[in-house]
């Protein structure tokens, strides 16, 4: 934090930039690389996130090859994986590395940094009416710490013993002992150091988001006039700032256990017939520290998607959001409950059953705010004048996935049922739908909706519709059958199921899932092509407010410079959801309330 003190002159520079932006000389480096403009930083996060998503998605395609076709060889794999796929057969050690890195990359690098990093940076100053973040310098550092974390994580893929392979939760003792597996060697150290850098990045970002939202809103922008995107990003940032430090302390203790001979997590362990000197530690301690972050992390991923979907659903239904305060209240409830449910990931670790029952109760309570949100989304759509833009489709898809995936959470939240379902494909299906794919849909919705503001061009609609339909149908085809596999007891993280009599019947289903996952992956590449192609070649935006939206970001010029508004920052006079009021299609937030305007929303 000491850096905050040394950076006190950043605001001064910002004021200078804002006033003289048109004759302020910017080099390529300061404009595109070490930029302090929140919009550029957002794009940096987004593009880095897209690259990570391709890498993480590719991992899943490779391990799905193994799961779908366990008795076949794929010689092309040897060409680019080398000794990890001798003769075209995936090495079991590397299979674990792939699932571990798939989880790490998608959870942290794509859906945390790529999602929050992009949209918190892009939308907060634009939607609350600020020139930039509270501290543009810390904001820039946030991206570059993320970049450093990315470099370290990528480097870990190329070390001789392979990247971390103990699962994305890196439970000790597997992760604490270098001799435990190939992936527990240098790859694990790089994972921990990379994650430490990542946490620093998240914290710097989160501090800025909170301060900007509470402190830098334009005149008239009271808290209850903020778009729901901002509320969602606000709760996301609070969750991150309070939970990531706990993971950091857990990771530091793990680093000491690995490299300096301490025994925080280790006790009475025998490796290869040799008794280790470590004594007095507890592996469960790590799980507590990990899941104290790990559960809020779920909402760190999900809340931004909820916020953006709320906004997009309202804009494209041409109707006010239903139950604005209930939406804010339910997000607040989710944020509080997020901190009180971590032990539901640990029902089968020998947790006291009484304690378990408390966590069951608190976990099931989350169904209440979640149901309120779903109800409000559906009532917002109800009798709306719906425009099926690609962003709207993805927002509706988000609601669909959130319902389907949320319902299975009620099964898993019961500690009695969890004894049967834990560590099976049921869990995989649950969290991929409700957290993974749903948040991806929120992210896609956000990209399609705000792309015109980001780059001054539209994405191609035809490609977008193909992308949407393949992805939503594919997502259900991939994950729906996994529920049945899980109910039948098929465990996660296994390399090959063909040797088990009880899971042989799923051979064809696994092949089908693998096939669909490849098709869906290809559809994502279509999106990536659309994204990069449209940055330069997309249809140009000519309308300042292409979606007829009320929020402040559409009052900026087509391509806003650093400082966002060339003149004064507009003043806000109303909430952002006056759609279809008094016979008018929409009334922007900047328009004063008229004399004969009807009161209430």
């Amino acid at each position, binding site marked *: 934090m000491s850096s905050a003190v040394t950076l006190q002159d950043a605001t001064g520079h910002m004021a200078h930039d804002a006033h003289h932006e048109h004759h302020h000389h910017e080099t390529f480096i300061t404009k595109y690389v070490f930029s302090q403009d929140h919009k550029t930083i957002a794009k940096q996060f987004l593009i880095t996130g897209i690259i990570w998503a391709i890498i993480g998605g590719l991992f899943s395609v490779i391990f799905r090859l193994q799961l779908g076709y366990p008795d076949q060889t794929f010689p092309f794999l040897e060409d680019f994986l080398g000794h990890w796929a001798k003769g075209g057969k995936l090495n079991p050690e590397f299979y674990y590395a792939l699932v571990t890195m798939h989880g790490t990359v998608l959870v942290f690098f794509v859906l945390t940094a790529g999602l929050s990093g992009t949209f918190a940076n892009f939308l907060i100053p634009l939607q609350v009416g600020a020139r930039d973040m509270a501290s543009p310098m810390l904001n820039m550092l946030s991206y570059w710490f993320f970049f450093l974390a990315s470099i370290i994580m990528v480097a870990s893929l190329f070390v001789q013993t392979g990247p971390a392979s103990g699962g994305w939760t890196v439970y000790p003792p597997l992760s604490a002992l270098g001799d435990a597996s190939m992936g527990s060697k240098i790859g694990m150290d790089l994972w921990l150091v990379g994650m430490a850098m990542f946490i620093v990045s998240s914290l710097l970002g989160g501090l800025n988001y909170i301060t900007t939202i509470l402190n830098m809103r334009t005149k008239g922008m009271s808290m209850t006039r903020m778009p729901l995107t901002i509320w969602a990003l606000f709760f996301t940032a609070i969750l991150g700032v309070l939970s990531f430090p706990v993971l950091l302390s857990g990771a530091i203790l793990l680093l000491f256990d690995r490299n300096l001979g301490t025994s925080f997590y280790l006790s009475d362990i025998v490796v290869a017939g040799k008794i280790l000197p470590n004594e*007095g530690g507890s592996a469960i301690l790590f799980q507590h520290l990990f899941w104290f972050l790990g559960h809020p992390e779920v909402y760190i991923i999900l809340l931004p998607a909820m916020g953006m979907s709320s906004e997009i659903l309202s804009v494209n239904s041409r109707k006010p959001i239903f139950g604005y305060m209930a939406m804010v209240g339910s997000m607040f409830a989710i944020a509080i409950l997020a901190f009180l449910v971590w032990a539901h990931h640990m029902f089968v670790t020998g947790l006291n059953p009484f304690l378990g029952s408390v966590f069951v109760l608190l976990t099931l309570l989350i169904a209440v705010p979640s149901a309120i949100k779903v109800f409000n989304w559906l009532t917002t759509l109800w009798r709306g004048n719906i425009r099926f833009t690609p962003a709207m489709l993805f927002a509706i898809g988000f609601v669909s996935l959130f319902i389907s995936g949320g319902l299975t959470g009620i099964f898993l939240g019961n500690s009695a049922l969890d004894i049967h379902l834990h560590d099976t494909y049921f869990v995989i299906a649950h969290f991929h739908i409700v957290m993974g794919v749903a948040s991806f849909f929120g992210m896609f919705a956000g990209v399609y909706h705000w792309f015109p503001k980001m780059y001054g061009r539209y994405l191609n609609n035809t490609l977008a519709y193909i992308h949407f339909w393949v992805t939503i149908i594919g997502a259900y085809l991939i994950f729906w059958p996994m529920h049945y596999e899980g109910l039948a007891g098929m465990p996660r993280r296994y390399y090959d199921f063909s040797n088990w009599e009880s899971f042989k019947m799923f051979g064809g289903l696994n092949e089908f899932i693998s096939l669909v996952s490849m098709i869906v992956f290809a559809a994502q590449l279509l999106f990536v092509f659309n994204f990069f192609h449209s940055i330069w070649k997309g249809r140009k935006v000519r309308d300042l407010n292409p979606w007829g939206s009320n929020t402040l970001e559409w009052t900026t010029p087509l391509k806003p410079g650093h400082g966002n508004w060339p003149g004064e920052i507009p003043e806000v006079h109303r909430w952002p959801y006056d759609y279809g009021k008094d016979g008018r299609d929409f009334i922007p937030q900047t328009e004063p309330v008229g004399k004969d305007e009807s009161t209430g929303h």
Partner: protein
Amino acid sequence: MSTVLMEQRNKIHPHKFTLWVGIGSMLMMFAGLTSAYIVKRNQANWVSFQLPAAFWYSTAAIIISSICIHLAGKAFREREMSRYRILVAVTLGLGVVFVLLQLVGFRQLWNSGVTFTGNVSYSFLYVIVGIHAVHVLGGIVALIVLSLKAFSTKIRNYSTVPVELMSTYWHFVDLLWIYLLVFLLMIR
């Protein structure tokens, strides 16, 4: 921008607010460590330890330095710049003394058999005190920058924000240390 700043005059400065949120974040890290400590404390083979005398001297050093940075802020607001320079330098000196005394304390611990890997309780002691010391070192870096600015003849600074930020952070590491000291005395 200037109008915006004017509107915000009665609000808390964004950087100060950021620092407060950051302090919340750092507190969560120590909450994680100390609650892990409590959980482990109630398990078998926990070995108690004595805190070294040097930790008490270091406590005195950081409390006095905390008073100094407070007085420095007061001097700055009264534009008593020579007094301000001296007080910032004294704060910096005492901060360095604090870290050195902590190192002496660790040496005393080590010589009395409380080694880093001796027992989980010892490891916790080293890690918790060590991570606090890292936070103090961060403050020392900031104090060095502040001192260089204070003694520079080229820069004239009228903003009270840097010194106030420094003061808040320094009080924070001071209070955090007192909390940790009491915590380690009560529960060991």
